[in-house]
């Protein structure tokens, strides 16, 4: 498990159960859609750039979560560096990949498909599929595009959870006055990451003051 820092936000608290469940559900779906040997999500540690196995379905699911790899390692490192999805074949024939995979995962795949998780313009992680079963109705490029769709879905879902986190996980209440207050906070939350640095500092200062006032009331 790792902490991730979306652009323009303070470091988030450690991932909550819903986020872990969400990512687990995404990799389980991918495993079945692609008829793969394993499916996983790496997140990039913003401090070190390391790739951290966040969640895995299939081969390695009981041992891999939490394992860290240096920046730039393997296909996931290649995708994290470029921000582009890709399909790598005959990876077992490349000695350095084979060695890294065997040591890291205990499983040696023939092919790896990977796509970046882009959140607010930054690559926060990589989704990887080992040994998918090629669908005769699709070619390699279409498989990559399908994985990119799933990765986009996962990244958008993570973003949604982050926004809910900002609201403390509260659902919008039925009361109309409270609804408009929540909507105001939601607007601020959505606009803040795109604001300039001095403006962000001032808005955060106001919010901290508001938080302190509410805490003493």
């Amino acid at each position, binding site marked *: 498990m790792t902490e991730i820092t979306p652009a323009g936000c303070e470091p988030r608290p450690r991932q909550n159960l819903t986020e872990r469940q969400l990512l687990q559900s995404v990799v389980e779906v991918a495993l079945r859609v692609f008829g793969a040997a394993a499916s996983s999500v790496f997140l*990039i540690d913003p401090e070190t*750039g390391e*790739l951290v196995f966040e969640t895995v379905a299939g081969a390695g699911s009981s041992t891999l979560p939490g394992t860290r790899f*240096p*920046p*730039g*390692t393997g296909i996931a*490192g*290649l995708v*994290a*560096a*470029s*921000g*582009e*999805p*890709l*399909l*790598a*074949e*005959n*990876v077992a*024939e*490349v*000695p*350095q*990949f084979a060695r890294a995979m065997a040591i890291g995962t205990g499983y040696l795949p023939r092919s790896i498909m990977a*796509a*970046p998780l*882009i959140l607010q*313009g*930054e*690559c926060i992680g990589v989704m990887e599929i080992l040994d998918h079963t090629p669908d005769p109705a699709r*070619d*390699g*490029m*279409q498989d*990559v*595009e399908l994985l*990119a*769709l799933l*990765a*986009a*879905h996962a990244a*958008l879902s993570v973003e949604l959870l982050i926004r809910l986190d900002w609201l403390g996980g509260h659902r919008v209440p039925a009361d109309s006055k409270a609804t408009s207050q929540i909507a105001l906070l939601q607007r601020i939350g959505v606009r803040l990451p795109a604001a300039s640095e001095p403006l962000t500092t001032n808005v955060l200062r106001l919010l901290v003051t508001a938080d302190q006032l509410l805490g003493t009331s």
Partner: protein
Amino acid sequence: MTDQPWRRDRPPVFPGVPAWGALTAGSPPEPFSLIPQPHVTPDWVWGGSDGSGARVCVLDSGVDQSHPRVGTVTTSVAVRTGTDGQLDIAECAGTDQAGHGTACAGIIRSVAPGVDLSSVRVLTDGKFGSGAALMAGLSWAIDQGYDVINLSLATTRPEFCATLHELADRAYFRRCILVASANNMPVLSYPWAFSSVVSVASHNESDPMAYYYNPSPPVDFYAMGVGVKVPVPGAGEMRLTGNSFAAPHMTGIIARVLAKHPYLTPFQLKTLLYLNARNVVELNRRSG
């Protein structure tokens, strides 16, 4: 002229719709109208050229110059954060941690074996997303007077769009060709979507010299990007699929053209590329 492909609405970009590429294998290309120039043939445009004399720069994660498929790398530099906190350019070892730049360099070398190849590392610490490093490296490369710069990368940060646009125009006026891969993620990104660059997505054929013109922009051309054999840092080869690997094929072809016809302007070059694209050659010949 109302139903021509280039008059269609630009395809909408929203989460869940990647795909700038084309499945050319097995499906006939769409016909369209053109002004014939039948005397301009592939043989005249690049025949006999291996790229010797053209200077090509790979803006990427670095290039492993020890790999036999890469050959000599004339210059290897990296964008770094200086002691004053500002980005600067410094010489670096000819290595590549992630392997992305080495893959692109190997493809360029295979298409145009004679090119003079250099590397600017802008993807640092194996982490994508630094638009500032991309711009610093691109600005430096344009100033160095390279004939072609391969950009198999993009930034999604809209705040960098205007500066990148200026850089792309500066390159265009200095006759420095920027070859940029289209992003097949469902996000807006730059600079591939600018009209001053040569933008490239993938087709699914296995001929490294085969490329197609796209009559329905923003992507200009489709080149080989599926199952491409690329060098891996250290040793060995791997087959990769992605638009990142289509752009270097086009870079190699352009290097061959510019090596044979060094005084082409960017707009002349694009015209020659257009007339010799696989789906245009036949129309051009028949129309003539």
